[in-house]
């Protein structure tokens, strides 16, 4: 049982670095989500949490479970990573479109508004 749990020091350092990268990005995203002045800026900062803040920790867990021999958990974590990569742009696009349709505009004047020009055409 001790041999199953025992992992080498290099793998442990790699897992720690991946966890630290993930937690750094999650912390930056949370601070941005609390401190940004605008609704669109907050959306952009929450994407920071959802991409690398999740993927760092999930890949660290995948490496740990693959090294210790828990193959089922590793496969599930890989499915979770792929699902996260696929679904995050869809959710971000949907919520951004909803914010535009709801009438929320940025604090300063927009530099470029292609979607609004398309709306006024028809």
């Amino acid at each position: 049982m001790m041999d199953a749990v025992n992992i080498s020091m290099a793998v442990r350092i790699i897992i720690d670095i991946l966890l630290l990268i993930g937690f750094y990005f999650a912390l930056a995203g949370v601070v941005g989500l609390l401190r940004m002045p605008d609704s669109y800026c907050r959306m952009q900062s929450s994407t920071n949490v959802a991409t690398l803040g999740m993927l760092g920790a999930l890949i660290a867990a995948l490496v740990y479970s693959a090294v210790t021999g828990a193959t089922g958990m590793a496969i599930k974590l890989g499915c979770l990573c792929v699902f996260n990569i696929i679904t995050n742009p869809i959710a971000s696009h949907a919520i951004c479109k909803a914010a535009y349709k709801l009438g929320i505009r940025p604090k300063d004047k927009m530099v470029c508004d292609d979607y609004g020009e398309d709306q006024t055409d028809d």
Partner: protein
Amino acid sequence: MDKEDLGMTELMIFAILYGILALIVCVRLYKGPSSVDRAVASDCVDSLTTVSLALFAVFSGRSIYLDISMTLAVLGFLGTVMISRYLEGKL
């Protein structure tokens, strides 16, 4: 002492830290000016809770928490898309 040191304690530590981050995001969930901000914050809470549950599942070696975490990820995505469709007025 070597036998005690074999477990990966930092997985549990980072799971707790991700949980604390999810609690901090609840501030934005409470005082968001518009409903879009609240939807974004709830999506963020879903992501952080998913990571925390996955880390705890790997630490404790129980696969049931990983199933809960995958279900939470799917439900968070569906909830965000449904809320944005509703705010758009197309539902």
